[in-house]
């Protein structure tokens, strides 16, 4: 993937370990021990993704601001994990503004250890014809909560919010609260989240779409699917639609289920053993979300992190 990589320890910037020289100088980057500020100036296209790696050993809080100006094309990756395998408690608040015609692809990987917790508030304001693509993957942490709020504040703004959570530990709990506010006309939003849950893991997903009066010809789609590998795993899915405008399209779908026994039998009847068949089917389930990642190098990276390299 070879991103421009910045390292933070408990929220503090680690200059020596970071590729600060590789960051184009027109990008404004400032930080304090509790905050990060990033501004991408007009017309900037960065082919190489920027990656912020957050390592934690204790409780820390961060307040971040990202401004993506007009016509920018930026790929940005956030990764959260532990340092020295210590437990941590991460609280991160991020505010993002996308200016007209900006395209911002945001990828987040949460792989903290099984004793850690992660709380993220994420708030995006999108101006005219801006495009946000967001992908959140949880494959670690004891508890994680993602509160995501996207405002399509001006016409023709669009967002695609995707997520995958792979929970295998007992007591592991991941929650998503995703809200898209369609304020202006011709907005488009899509939510597509999937979860695979084993043992005692628990997941909750609330997908809320609010279409304000005047947000005519808005299109909102929402899907949330869960695969339960154990009888004790619990998944809750709550779609909420609040619509005050006419002439709009909203769809939603949610499922909680097991692996299709007919599919297992089909694979086994061709000689694959049961465990391998189940493994393939789980990976196939996840692959559908991973394939939404546009940038190939990031898609490969996330697929590897998810342990989903089934396709040879």
């Amino acid at each position, binding site marked *: 993937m070879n991103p421009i990589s910045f390292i933070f320890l408990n929220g503090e910037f680690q200059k020596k370990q970071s590729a600060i020289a590789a960051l184009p100088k027109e990008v404004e980057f400032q930080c304090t021990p509790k905050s990060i500020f990033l501004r991408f100036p007009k017309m900037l296209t960065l082919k190489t993704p920027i990656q912020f790696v957050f390592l934690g050993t204790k409780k820390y809080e961060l307040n971040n601001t990202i401004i993506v100006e007009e016509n920018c094309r930026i790929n940005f990756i956030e990764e959260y994990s532990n340092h020295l395998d210590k437990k941590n408690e991460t609280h991160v608040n991020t505010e993002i503004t996308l200016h007209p015609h900006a395209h911002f692809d945001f990828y987040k990987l949460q792989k903290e250890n099984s004793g850690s917790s992660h709380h993220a508030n994420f708030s995006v304001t999108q101006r005219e014809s801006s495009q946000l693509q967001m992908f959140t993957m949880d494959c670690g942490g004891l508890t994680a909560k993602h509160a995501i709020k996207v405002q399509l504040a001006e016409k023709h703004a669009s967002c695609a919010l995707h997520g995958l959570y792979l929970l295998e530990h007992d007591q592991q709990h991941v929650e998503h609260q995703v809200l898209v506010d369609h304020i202006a006309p011709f907005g488009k939003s899509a939510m597509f989240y999937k979860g695979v849950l084993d043992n005692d893991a628990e997941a909750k997903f609330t997908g809320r779409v609010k279409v304000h009066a005047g947000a005519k010809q808005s299109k909102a789609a929402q899907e949330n699917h869960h695969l339960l590998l154990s009888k004790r795993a619990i998944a809750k899915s709550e779609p909420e639609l609040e619509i005050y405008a006419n002439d709009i399209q909203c769809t939603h779908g949610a499922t909680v289920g097991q692996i*299709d*026994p*007919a*599919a297992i*039998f*089909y*694979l*086994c*009847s*061709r*000689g*694959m*053993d*049961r465990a*391998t*068949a189940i493994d*393939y*089917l789980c*990976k*196939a*389930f*996840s*692959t*559908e979300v991973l394939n939404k990642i546009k940038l190939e190098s990031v898609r490969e990276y996330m697929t590897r992190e998810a342990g989903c390299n*089934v*396709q*040879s």
Partner: protein
Amino acid sequence: MLKIKNLHVSILDENQKKKEILRGISLEIAPGTVHAIMGPNGSGKSTLANVLAGREGYEITDGEIKFRDKNLFDLAPEERATEGVFLAFQYPVEIPGVNNMYFLKAALNSLRKKRNLPPIDAYDFLQLVKSKMKEVGMDEKFLSRAVNEGFSGGEKKRNEILQMLMLEPSFAILDETDSGLDIDALQMVAQGVNSLRNTERSFMMVTHYQRLLNYIVPDVVHVMAKGKIIKSGDKSLALLLEEKGYGWIEGEGGV
């Protein structure tokens, strides 16, 4: 090769009540022979095919099935596959996210592994699969599609035959592979089966219609009704059925 003795099979119906589907099937299939199983809807033909392949959800209440010298009920579906049993599904399962070529290769390699052969070379595999696809009249683009996802009925059946040609089973069961096929696809199925016929390999073809048997000439024809084989004979039996319908034989069999 295959010996079925007094097989009784039940299922639980939608009211969780036990319902007997197969009521004492006995059947012997010798190496190198083709057996056709015919019979009206609900006679238990597909149940027999699925029980042989090891599908869950059936209760074997009596009887036994020997495949070569092994008791089939001791073997999981994948073990039956490695022993050489193959079922061409009546309704092939769609598996989104699993690539067709990858699936074929994984299936072939798992059979090779059990036979102590190394995994097939990637180039050899591609040559093999392409030539077999040509035989069944499938476009190569289906290799990169997900298994059966969005395939038409005919494409799914072709894909079943492709798998059969790739895996070269010693005993293949075709469960109504001919249903819903146009004449071209039907001939392709027949060609696939006929190309595999030899003195060792056996086939069991479950079908409603005599039509398929014009192209794959069976050695033995069995007629099933209400969970039993009520008549067996040579290929002329199929022609008689075509002419007189099942009612004639059901009356004669006293079921």
